[in-house]
Protein backbone atom coordinates (compact mmCIF):
# COMPACT_ATOMS: atom_id res chain seq x y z
CA UNK A 1 0.00 0.00 0.00
CA UNK A 2 1.26 3.46 -0.88
CA UNK A 3 1.75 6.06 1.80
CA UNK A 4 -0.34 8.93 0.56
CA UNK A 5 0.18 10.84 3.82
CA UNK A 6 3.82 11.14 2.94
CA UNK A 7 2.98 12.25 -0.63
CA UNK A 8 0.63 14.96 0.64
CA UNK A 9 3.30 16.31 2.96
CA UNK A 10 5.74 16.49 0.08
CA UNK A 11 3.16 18.21 -2.17
CA UNK A 12 2.38 20.80 0.48
CA UNK A 13 6.07 21.45 1.15
CA UNK A 14 6.63 22.06 -2.55
CA UNK A 15 3.62 24.41 -2.69
CA UNK A 16 4.86 26.34 0.33
CA UNK A 17 8.23 26.67 -1.35
CA UNK A 18 6.70 28.28 -4.42
CA UNK A 19 4.03 30.46 -2.88
CA UNK A 20 4.12 33.84 -1.22
CA UNK A 21 2.36 34.31 2.09
CA UNK A 22 -0.96 35.38 0.56
CA UNK A 23 -1.09 32.50 -1.87
CA UNK A 24 -0.22 30.00 0.83
CA UNK A 25 -2.93 31.32 3.11
CA UNK A 26 -5.47 30.71 0.30
CA UNK A 27 -4.20 27.15 0.04
CA UNK A 28 -4.26 26.76 3.82
CA UNK A 29 -7.95 27.73 3.80
CA UNK A 30 -8.60 25.18 1.01
CA UNK A 31 -7.07 22.33 3.05
CA UNK A 32 -8.80 23.12 6.35
CA UNK A 33 -10.59 19.93 7.48
CA UNK A 34 -14.01 21.62 7.18
CA UNK A 35 -13.29 22.73 3.58
CA UNK A 36 -12.08 19.24 2.66
CA UNK A 37 -15.10 17.53 4.24
CA UNK A 38 -17.77 19.58 2.42
CA UNK A 39 -18.36 18.47 -1.20
CA UNK A 40 -19.68 21.85 -2.33
CA UNK A 41 -16.75 23.80 -0.94
CA UNK A 42 -14.23 21.24 -2.12
CA UNK A 43 -15.49 21.13 -5.73
CA UNK A 44 -15.48 24.94 -5.92
CA UNK A 45 -11.95 25.19 -4.51
CA UNK A 46 -10.74 22.36 -6.73
CA UNK A 47 -11.83 24.37 -9.80
CA UNK A 48 -10.57 27.63 -8.28
CA UNK A 49 -6.99 26.31 -7.96
CA UNK A 50 -6.56 27.10 -11.67
CA UNK A 51 -7.37 30.78 -11.65
CA UNK A 52 -5.66 31.30 -8.30
CA UNK A 53 -2.42 29.38 -8.69
CA UNK A 54 -1.67 28.79 -12.37
CA UNK A 55 0.41 31.99 -12.64
CA UNK A 56 2.91 30.60 -10.08
CA UNK A 57 5.74 29.13 -12.14
CA UNK A 58 7.18 25.66 -11.70
CA UNK A 59 10.91 25.04 -11.85
CA UNK A 60 11.22 23.53 -15.33
CA UNK A 61 14.78 22.42 -14.58
CA UNK A 62 13.82 20.71 -11.31
CA UNK A 63 12.74 17.12 -10.87
CA UNK A 64 9.64 15.24 -9.78
CA UNK A 65 7.08 17.47 -8.13
CA UNK A 66 9.24 20.55 -8.75
CA UNK A 67 8.25 20.41 -12.42
CA UNK A 68 4.53 20.07 -11.84
CA UNK A 69 2.26 23.02 -12.59
CA UNK A 70 1.31 24.68 -9.30
CA UNK A 71 -2.43 24.22 -9.77
CA UNK A 72 -1.86 20.49 -10.28
CA UNK A 73 0.10 20.17 -7.03
CA UNK A 74 -2.72 21.98 -5.23
CA UNK A 75 -5.50 19.91 -6.81
CA UNK A 76 -3.79 16.59 -6.09
CA UNK A 77 -3.37 17.72 -2.48
CA UNK A 78 -7.07 18.56 -2.21
CA UNK A 79 -8.23 15.35 -3.88
CA UNK A 80 -5.91 13.14 -1.80
CA UNK A 81 -7.03 14.73 1.46
CA UNK A 82 -10.66 14.41 0.36
CA UNK A 83 -10.29 10.69 -0.36
CA UNK A 84 -8.51 10.11 2.94
CA UNK A 85 -11.38 11.87 4.74
CA UNK A 86 -14.26 9.85 3.23
CA UNK A 87 -15.76 6.38 3.17
CA UNK A 88 -14.84 4.57 -0.08
CA UNK A 89 -18.27 5.01 -1.73
CA UNK A 90 -18.37 8.72 -0.86
CA UNK A 91 -14.83 9.20 -2.11
CA UNK A 92 -15.71 7.51 -5.41
CA UNK A 93 -18.82 9.67 -5.79
CA UNK A 94 -16.84 12.86 -5.19
CA UNK A 95 -13.96 11.91 -7.48
CA UNK A 96 -16.36 10.94 -10.26
CA UNK A 97 -18.01 14.37 -9.97
CA UNK A 98 -14.62 16.16 -10.00
CA UNK A 99 -13.66 14.21 -13.10
CA UNK A 100 -16.89 14.55 -15.08
CA UNK A 101 -17.39 18.23 -14.31
CA UNK A 102 -13.74 19.17 -14.51
CA UNK A 103 -11.95 21.05 -17.25
CA UNK A 104 -8.94 19.37 -18.84
CA UNK A 105 -6.48 20.29 -16.10
CA UNK A 106 -8.91 19.25 -13.38
CA UNK A 107 -9.37 15.87 -15.08
CA UNK A 108 -5.60 15.43 -15.29
CA UNK A 109 -5.28 16.13 -11.56
CA UNK A 110 -8.00 13.61 -10.65
CA UNK A 111 -6.27 10.90 -12.66
CA UNK A 112 -2.84 11.69 -11.29
CA UNK A 113 -4.28 11.41 -7.78
CA UNK A 114 -5.27 7.80 -8.54
CA UNK A 115 -1.54 7.06 -8.63
CA UNK A 116 -1.54 7.41 -4.84
CA UNK A 117 -4.34 4.84 -4.47
CA UNK A 118 -3.51 1.79 -6.62
CA UNK A 119 -5.21 -0.51 -4.10
CA UNK A 120 -8.63 1.22 -4.40
CA UNK A 121 -10.88 -0.51 -6.93
CA UNK A 122 -13.79 1.92 -6.44
CA UNK A 123 -12.09 4.44 -8.75
CA UNK A 124 -11.95 2.04 -11.69
CA UNK A 125 -14.87 3.58 -13.60
CA UNK A 126 -13.14 6.96 -13.60
CA UNK A 127 -9.96 5.40 -14.95
CA UNK A 128 -11.93 3.58 -17.69
CA UNK A 129 -13.69 6.80 -18.66
CA UNK A 130 -10.28 8.46 -19.01
CA UNK A 131 -9.21 5.69 -21.40
CA UNK A 132 -12.03 6.77 -23.72
CA UNK A 133 -10.88 10.41 -23.76
CA UNK A 134 -9.48 11.75 -27.00
CA UNK A 135 -7.82 14.60 -25.15
CA UNK A 136 -4.20 13.49 -25.15
CA UNK A 137 -3.09 15.03 -21.83
CA UNK A 138 -6.14 13.52 -20.09
CA UNK A 139 -5.50 10.07 -21.53
CA UNK A 140 -1.79 10.46 -20.72
CA UNK A 141 -2.61 11.23 -17.10
CA UNK A 142 -3.97 7.74 -16.51
CA UNK A 143 -1.60 6.01 -18.93
CA UNK A 144 1.76 7.52 -17.95
CA UNK A 145 3.62 7.80 -14.63
CA UNK A 146 0.64 6.20 -12.91
CA UNK A 147 0.59 2.95 -10.94
CA UNK A 148 -3.18 2.62 -11.08
CA UNK A 149 -3.67 0.83 -14.44
CA UNK A 150 -1.04 -1.89 -13.90
CA UNK A 151 -2.40 -2.53 -10.41
CA UNK A 152 -6.12 -2.58 -11.24
CA UNK A 153 -6.88 -3.03 -14.94
CA UNK A 154 -7.98 -6.32 -16.42
CA UNK A 155 -5.91 -7.55 -19.33
CA UNK A 156 -8.51 -6.27 -21.81
CA UNK A 157 -8.35 -2.69 -20.53
CA UNK A 158 -4.61 -2.71 -20.00
CA UNK A 159 -3.98 -3.90 -23.55
CA UNK A 160 -6.39 -1.35 -25.02
CA UNK A 161 -4.61 1.39 -23.10
CA UNK A 162 -1.19 0.39 -24.39
CA UNK A 163 -2.45 0.12 -27.95
CA UNK A 164 -4.08 3.54 -27.79
CA UNK A 165 -0.85 5.01 -26.38
CA UNK A 166 0.97 3.65 -29.42
CA UNK A 167 -1.69 5.14 -31.73
CA UNK A 168 -1.29 8.52 -30.03
CA UNK A 169 2.50 8.30 -30.21
CA UNK A 170 2.81 8.64 -26.46
CA UNK A 171 6.04 7.54 -24.74
CA UNK A 172 5.15 3.97 -23.79
CA UNK A 173 8.29 3.85 -21.64
CA UNK A 174 6.30 5.94 -19.17
CA UNK A 175 3.61 3.27 -18.68
CA UNK A 176 4.27 1.94 -15.19
CA UNK A 177 4.30 -1.85 -14.84
CA UNK A 178 4.30 -2.42 -18.60
CA UNK A 179 6.98 -5.09 -18.50
CA UNK A 180 5.23 -7.01 -15.70
CA UNK A 181 1.88 -6.86 -17.52
CA UNK A 182 3.14 -7.94 -20.95
CA UNK A 183 1.02 -10.79 -22.33
CA UNK A 184 0.86 -12.82 -25.55
CA UNK A 185 -2.36 -11.12 -26.63
CA UNK A 186 -0.82 -7.65 -26.37
CA UNK A 187 2.24 -8.76 -28.30
CA UNK A 188 -0.04 -10.19 -30.99
CA UNK A 189 -2.04 -6.95 -31.22
CA UNK A 190 1.16 -4.97 -31.55
CA UNK A 191 2.55 -7.22 -34.19
CA UNK A 192 -0.76 -6.99 -36.14
CA UNK A 193 -0.56 -3.22 -35.91
CA UNK A 194 3.02 -3.27 -37.19
CA UNK A 195 1.82 -5.29 -40.21
CA UNK A 196 -1.09 -2.90 -40.81
CA UNK A 197 1.26 0.10 -40.87
CA UNK A 198 3.81 -1.65 -43.07
CA UNK A 199 1.20 -2.72 -45.65
CA UNK A 200 -0.13 0.87 -45.75
CA UNK A 201 3.42 2.15 -46.33
CA UNK A 202 3.32 4.13 -43.11
CA UNK A 203 6.03 4.51 -40.48
CA UNK A 204 5.94 2.06 -37.57
CA UNK A 205 5.47 3.92 -34.26
CA UNK A 206 8.51 3.71 -31.99
CA UNK A 207 6.41 2.34 -29.14
CA UNK A 208 6.08 -0.98 -30.98
CA UNK A 209 9.82 -1.55 -31.09
CA UNK A 210 10.13 -0.58 -27.45
CA UNK A 211 7.56 -3.12 -26.30
CA UNK A 212 9.02 -5.87 -28.46
CA UNK A 213 12.42 -5.15 -26.97
CA UNK A 214 10.96 -5.45 -23.47
CA UNK A 215 9.68 -8.88 -24.43
CA UNK A 216 12.92 -10.10 -25.96
CA UNK A 217 14.90 -8.88 -22.97
CA UNK A 218 16.97 -6.47 -25.04
CA UNK A 219 17.58 -2.92 -23.70
CA UNK A 220 16.24 -3.67 -20.26
Amino acid sequence: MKNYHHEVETLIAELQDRMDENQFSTLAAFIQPAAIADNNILTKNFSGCGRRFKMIQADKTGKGYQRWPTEKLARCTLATLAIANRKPTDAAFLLDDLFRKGDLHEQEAVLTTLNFFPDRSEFMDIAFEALRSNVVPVFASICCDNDYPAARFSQLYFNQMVLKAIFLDIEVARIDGLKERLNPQLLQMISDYRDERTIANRSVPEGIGFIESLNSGVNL
Partner: protein
Amino acid sequence: MKMFDPHIHMTSRTTDDYQKMAEAGITVVCEPAFWMGQPRTHASSFEDYFLSLVGWERFRASQFGIHHFCTIALNPKEANNANLADDVLAMMPRYLEKESVIAVGEIGLDDQTDAEVYYLKKQVELAKEFELPVLVHTPHRDKKHGSMRCIDIILETGIDPSLVLIDHNNEETIEETLRSGCWAGHSIYPETKMDEERMARIVKRFGPEKIIINSAADWGVSDTLMVPKTVAKMRDIGVSEADIERVVWDNPIAFFAQSGRITKSALEKDVLRDQTQLFSGNSVLRGQTPQVDSI
Protein backbone atom coordinates in the same frame (compact mmCIF):
# COMPACT_ATOMS: atom_id res chain seq x y z
CA MET B 1 0.55 40.24 -36.67
CA LYS B 2 -1.09 38.12 -33.96
CA MET B 3 -4.86 38.44 -33.71
CA PHE B 4 -7.47 37.69 -31.05
CA ASP B 5 -11.05 36.94 -32.17
CA PRO B 6 -12.97 37.66 -28.96
CA HIS B 7 -16.38 36.39 -30.09
CA ILE B 8 -16.54 33.21 -32.15
CA HIS B 9 -18.56 30.00 -31.72
CA MET B 10 -16.02 27.35 -32.65
CA THR B 11 -18.24 24.50 -31.48
CA SER B 12 -20.20 25.05 -34.70
CA ARG B 13 -17.11 25.08 -36.92
CA THR B 14 -14.83 22.49 -38.49
CA THR B 15 -11.12 21.81 -38.27
CA ASP B 16 -10.76 23.47 -41.72
CA ASP B 17 -11.79 26.71 -40.03
CA TYR B 18 -9.21 26.25 -37.29
CA GLN B 19 -6.56 25.54 -39.91
CA LYS B 20 -7.34 28.68 -41.92
CA MET B 21 -7.61 30.85 -38.81
CA ALA B 22 -4.20 29.68 -37.60
CA GLU B 23 -2.70 30.37 -41.02
CA ALA B 24 -4.20 33.89 -41.01
CA GLY B 25 -2.55 34.68 -37.66
CA ILE B 26 -5.40 34.18 -35.18
CA THR B 27 -3.77 32.77 -32.04
CA VAL B 28 -6.41 33.49 -29.40
CA VAL B 29 -10.20 33.05 -29.43
CA CYS B 30 -12.95 33.58 -26.90
CA GLU B 31 -16.12 31.52 -27.34
CA PRO B 32 -19.17 32.94 -25.58
CA ALA B 33 -21.87 30.55 -24.40
CA PHE B 34 -24.93 31.22 -26.55
CA TRP B 35 -28.04 29.84 -28.19
CA MET B 36 -27.62 26.62 -30.18
CA GLY B 37 -30.00 27.61 -32.98
CA GLN B 38 -32.88 25.78 -31.34
CA PRO B 39 -34.06 25.84 -27.74
CA ARG B 40 -32.73 23.29 -25.24
CA THR B 41 -35.26 21.18 -23.36
CA HIS B 42 -33.20 20.39 -20.23
CA ALA B 43 -31.10 22.57 -17.96
CA SER B 44 -28.49 19.80 -17.91
CA SER B 45 -27.93 20.30 -21.64
CA PHE B 46 -26.42 23.65 -20.67
CA GLU B 47 -24.04 21.94 -18.32
CA ASP B 48 -22.72 19.59 -20.99
CA TYR B 49 -22.36 22.59 -23.30
CA PHE B 50 -20.39 24.51 -20.64
CA LEU B 51 -18.22 21.43 -20.14
CA SER B 52 -17.47 21.21 -23.85
CA LEU B 53 -16.44 24.89 -23.82
CA VAL B 54 -13.91 24.35 -21.01
CA GLY B 55 -12.94 20.88 -22.22
CA TRP B 56 -13.04 19.36 -25.67
CA GLU B 57 -13.30 22.61 -27.67
CA ARG B 58 -10.34 24.05 -25.80
CA PHE B 59 -8.28 20.98 -26.64
CA ARG B 60 -9.38 21.07 -30.29
CA ALA B 61 -8.25 24.71 -30.60
CA SER B 62 -4.92 23.99 -28.95
CA GLN B 63 -4.15 21.39 -31.60
CA PHE B 64 -4.03 24.21 -34.13
CA GLY B 65 -1.90 26.43 -31.93
CA ILE B 66 -4.88 28.53 -30.83
CA HIS B 67 -5.50 29.56 -27.21
CA HIS B 68 -9.20 29.01 -26.42
CA PHE B 69 -11.14 30.80 -23.69
CA CYS B 70 -14.85 31.10 -23.13
CA THR B 71 -17.56 33.03 -21.36
CA ILE B 72 -20.39 31.35 -19.45
CA ALA B 73 -24.00 32.53 -19.23
CA LEU B 74 -27.66 31.91 -19.75
CA ASN B 75 -28.24 33.65 -23.10
CA PRO B 76 -31.06 36.21 -23.41
CA LYS B 77 -33.23 34.07 -25.74
CA GLU B 78 -33.37 31.12 -23.34
CA ALA B 79 -33.76 33.41 -20.32
CA ASN B 80 -37.39 33.35 -21.47
CA ASN B 81 -37.67 29.61 -20.74
CA ALA B 82 -39.00 29.63 -17.17
CA ASN B 83 -38.63 25.83 -16.93
CA LEU B 84 -34.88 25.91 -16.95
CA ALA B 85 -33.59 29.47 -16.40
CA ASP B 86 -33.18 29.22 -12.62
CA ASP B 87 -31.53 25.81 -12.82
CA VAL B 88 -28.99 27.12 -15.33
CA LEU B 89 -28.24 30.09 -13.11
CA ALA B 90 -27.73 27.79 -10.13
CA MET B 91 -25.10 25.74 -11.97
CA MET B 92 -23.14 28.77 -13.21
CA PRO B 93 -20.94 29.48 -10.13
CA ARG B 94 -19.04 26.22 -10.50
CA TYR B 95 -18.22 27.10 -14.11
CA LEU B 96 -17.33 30.71 -13.35
CA GLU B 97 -14.55 29.32 -11.14
CA LYS B 98 -12.84 27.61 -14.07
CA GLU B 99 -9.60 29.12 -15.27
CA SER B 100 -10.51 29.42 -18.97
CA VAL B 101 -13.73 31.32 -18.23
CA ILE B 102 -12.81 34.97 -18.70
CA ALA B 103 -16.19 36.73 -18.55
CA VAL B 104 -19.91 36.27 -17.95
CA GLY B 105 -21.65 36.24 -21.34
CA GLU B 106 -23.42 36.47 -23.68
CA ILE B 107 -25.91 38.21 -21.49
CA GLY B 108 -28.17 41.02 -22.67
CA LEU B 109 -31.47 41.56 -24.35
CA ASP B 110 -33.09 39.99 -27.40
CA ASP B 111 -36.87 40.53 -27.43
CA GLN B 112 -36.45 42.85 -24.41
CA THR B 113 -38.90 40.92 -22.20
CA ASP B 114 -39.17 41.23 -18.41
CA ALA B 115 -37.57 37.79 -18.00
CA GLU B 116 -34.59 38.92 -20.08
CA VAL B 117 -34.16 42.01 -17.92
CA TYR B 118 -34.41 39.93 -14.73
CA TYR B 119 -31.73 37.40 -15.76
CA LEU B 120 -29.51 40.12 -17.19
CA LYS B 121 -29.37 41.85 -13.80
CA LYS B 122 -28.89 38.55 -11.93
CA GLN B 123 -25.94 37.63 -14.12
CA VAL B 124 -24.26 41.03 -13.77
CA GLU B 125 -24.44 40.42 -10.02
CA LEU B 126 -22.74 37.05 -10.52
CA ALA B 127 -20.01 38.76 -12.55
CA LYS B 128 -19.44 41.22 -9.72
CA GLU B 129 -19.22 38.36 -7.22
CA PHE B 130 -16.57 36.58 -9.32
CA GLU B 131 -14.81 39.83 -10.33
CA LEU B 132 -15.35 39.02 -13.98
CA PRO B 133 -16.07 41.34 -16.92
CA VAL B 134 -19.32 40.91 -18.89
CA LEU B 135 -19.89 40.35 -22.60
CA VAL B 136 -23.18 41.82 -23.72
CA HIS B 137 -25.36 40.78 -26.64
CA THR B 138 -27.49 43.64 -27.94
CA PRO B 139 -30.75 43.12 -29.83
CA HIS B 140 -30.69 42.93 -33.62
CA ARG B 141 -34.21 44.39 -33.81
CA ASP B 142 -34.91 47.81 -32.34
CA LYS B 143 -31.11 48.01 -32.17
CA LYS B 144 -30.44 51.58 -31.18
CA HIS B 145 -33.00 51.79 -28.40
CA GLY B 146 -32.38 48.20 -27.22
CA SER B 147 -28.62 48.73 -26.96
CA MET B 148 -29.04 51.85 -24.85
CA ARG B 149 -31.49 50.03 -22.64
CA CYS B 150 -28.95 47.21 -22.10
CA ILE B 151 -26.29 49.71 -21.07
CA ASP B 152 -28.63 51.50 -18.67
CA ILE B 153 -29.78 48.29 -16.96
CA ILE B 154 -26.20 47.03 -16.59
CA LEU B 155 -24.70 50.24 -15.27
CA GLU B 156 -27.55 50.64 -12.79
CA THR B 157 -26.16 47.61 -10.97
CA GLY B 158 -23.08 49.66 -10.14
CA ILE B 159 -20.61 47.60 -12.19
CA ASP B 160 -17.62 49.58 -13.48
CA PRO B 161 -18.29 50.35 -17.20
CA SER B 162 -14.70 49.40 -18.07
CA LEU B 163 -15.71 45.81 -17.18
CA VAL B 164 -18.49 45.86 -19.79
CA LEU B 165 -18.11 44.96 -23.48
CA ILE B 166 -21.18 45.91 -25.50
CA ASP B 167 -21.25 43.80 -28.64
CA HIS B 168 -22.78 44.07 -32.12
CA ASN B 169 -22.33 47.87 -32.38
CA ASN B 170 -22.67 49.85 -35.60
CA GLU B 171 -22.29 53.50 -36.68
CA GLU B 172 -25.57 54.32 -34.97
CA THR B 173 -24.70 52.94 -31.53
CA ILE B 174 -20.93 53.33 -31.14
CA GLU B 175 -20.90 56.92 -29.89
CA GLU B 176 -23.36 56.26 -27.08
CA THR B 177 -21.55 53.04 -26.16
CA LEU B 178 -18.18 54.77 -25.89
CA ARG B 179 -19.69 57.73 -24.04
CA SER B 180 -21.02 55.30 -21.37
CA GLY B 181 -17.45 54.17 -20.65
CA CYS B 182 -18.10 50.62 -21.91
CA TRP B 183 -16.00 48.90 -24.57
CA ALA B 184 -17.52 48.78 -28.06
CA GLY B 185 -17.47 45.40 -29.83
CA HIS B 186 -18.35 45.01 -33.50
CA SER B 187 -19.36 41.77 -35.20
CA ILE B 188 -18.34 41.72 -38.84
CA TYR B 189 -20.59 39.60 -41.05
CA PRO B 190 -20.19 38.77 -44.75
CA GLU B 191 -23.68 39.90 -45.75
CA THR B 192 -25.80 41.40 -42.97
CA LYS B 193 -25.06 43.90 -40.22
CA MET B 194 -21.53 45.34 -40.23
CA ASP B 195 -19.11 44.64 -43.11
CA GLU B 196 -15.31 45.02 -43.08
CA GLU B 197 -15.33 48.18 -45.21
CA ARG B 198 -17.68 50.01 -42.85
CA MET B 199 -15.71 48.73 -39.85
CA ALA B 200 -12.41 50.02 -41.23
CA ARG B 201 -13.97 53.45 -41.68
CA ILE B 202 -15.23 53.43 -38.08
CA VAL B 203 -11.70 52.80 -36.77
CA LYS B 204 -10.38 55.54 -39.06
CA ARG B 205 -12.99 57.97 -37.73
CA PHE B 206 -13.12 57.09 -34.01
CA GLY B 207 -9.57 55.77 -33.46
CA PRO B 208 -8.75 52.49 -31.66
CA GLU B 209 -9.65 53.45 -28.08
CA LYS B 210 -11.92 50.75 -26.53
CA ILE B 211 -12.83 49.43 -30.01
CA ILE B 212 -12.91 45.65 -30.46
CA ILE B 213 -13.85 43.58 -33.54
CA ASN B 214 -14.94 39.97 -33.90
CA SER B 215 -16.36 37.55 -36.46
CA ALA B 216 -19.19 36.23 -34.25
CA ALA B 217 -18.97 33.20 -36.57
CA ASP B 218 -21.45 30.48 -35.63
CA TRP B 219 -23.76 27.93 -37.28
CA GLY B 220 -25.24 30.58 -39.60
CA VAL B 221 -23.77 32.21 -42.70
CA SER B 222 -20.64 33.76 -41.23
CA ASP B 223 -16.90 33.95 -41.84
CA THR B 224 -14.25 32.91 -39.30
CA LEU B 225 -11.68 35.11 -41.10
CA MET B 226 -13.51 38.41 -40.62
CA VAL B 227 -10.89 39.75 -38.19
CA PRO B 228 -7.94 39.29 -40.58
CA LYS B 229 -10.08 40.50 -43.51
CA THR B 230 -10.94 43.68 -41.62
CA VAL B 231 -7.25 44.12 -40.78
CA ALA B 232 -6.52 44.08 -44.54
CA LYS B 233 -9.26 46.66 -45.15
CA MET B 234 -7.95 48.91 -42.38
CA ARG B 235 -4.50 48.78 -43.99
CA ASP B 236 -6.04 49.65 -47.39
CA ILE B 237 -7.57 52.85 -46.11
CA GLY B 238 -4.49 53.92 -44.19
CA VAL B 239 -5.13 53.01 -40.54
CA SER B 240 -1.70 52.82 -38.84
CA GLU B 241 -0.21 49.44 -37.92
CA ALA B 242 -0.12 50.49 -34.27
CA ASP B 243 -3.83 51.30 -34.29
CA ILE B 244 -4.68 48.05 -36.08
CA GLU B 245 -2.72 46.09 -33.50
CA ARG B 246 -4.55 47.80 -30.68
CA VAL B 247 -7.93 46.85 -32.13
CA VAL B 248 -7.20 43.18 -32.85
CA TRP B 249 -4.70 42.34 -30.10
CA ASP B 250 -4.06 44.83 -27.29
CA ASN B 251 -7.69 45.83 -26.72
CA PRO B 252 -9.29 42.38 -26.37
CA ILE B 253 -6.38 41.28 -24.14
CA ALA B 254 -6.71 44.40 -21.97
CA PHE B 255 -10.45 43.88 -21.63
CA PHE B 256 -10.36 40.18 -20.72
CA ALA B 257 -7.19 40.50 -18.60
CA GLN B 258 -9.46 42.27 -16.12
CA SER B 259 -10.61 38.75 -15.21
CA GLY B 260 -7.16 38.14 -13.71
CA ARG B 261 -7.10 34.87 -15.68
CA ILE B 262 -5.11 35.82 -18.78
CA THR B 263 -1.93 37.79 -19.33
CA LYS B 264 -0.37 39.10 -22.49
CA SER B 265 2.86 37.20 -21.89
CA ALA B 266 1.02 33.87 -21.46
CA LEU B 267 -0.94 34.48 -24.68
CA GLU B 268 2.26 35.13 -26.59
CA LYS B 269 3.44 31.57 -25.86
CA ASP B 270 2.97 28.71 -28.29
CA VAL B 271 -0.06 26.86 -26.93
CA LEU B 272 0.66 23.52 -28.62
CA ARG B 273 4.16 23.30 -27.25
CA ASP B 274 2.95 24.59 -23.92
CA GLN B 275 0.22 21.99 -23.71
CA THR B 276 2.54 19.06 -24.29
CA GLN B 277 4.76 20.49 -21.55
CA LEU B 278 1.86 20.68 -19.15
CA PHE B 279 1.84 17.04 -18.25
CA SER B 280 3.89 17.13 -15.05
CA GLY B 281 6.42 19.34 -16.76
CA ASN B 282 7.49 16.62 -19.19
CA SER B 283 6.28 16.10 -22.71
CA VAL B 284 4.65 12.71 -23.16
CA LEU B 285 4.05 13.25 -26.85
CA ARG B 286 6.68 12.13 -29.28
CA GLY B 287 5.25 14.15 -32.18
CA GLN B 288 3.38 17.44 -32.35
CA THR B 289 0.72 16.59 -34.89
CA PRO B 290 -2.96 17.40 -34.25
CA GLN B 291 -4.68 14.52 -32.45
CA VAL B 292 -8.28 15.41 -33.14
CA ASP B 293 -9.04 12.56 -35.50
CA SER B 294 -11.10 9.80 -33.98
CA ILE B 295 -9.10 7.26 -32.06
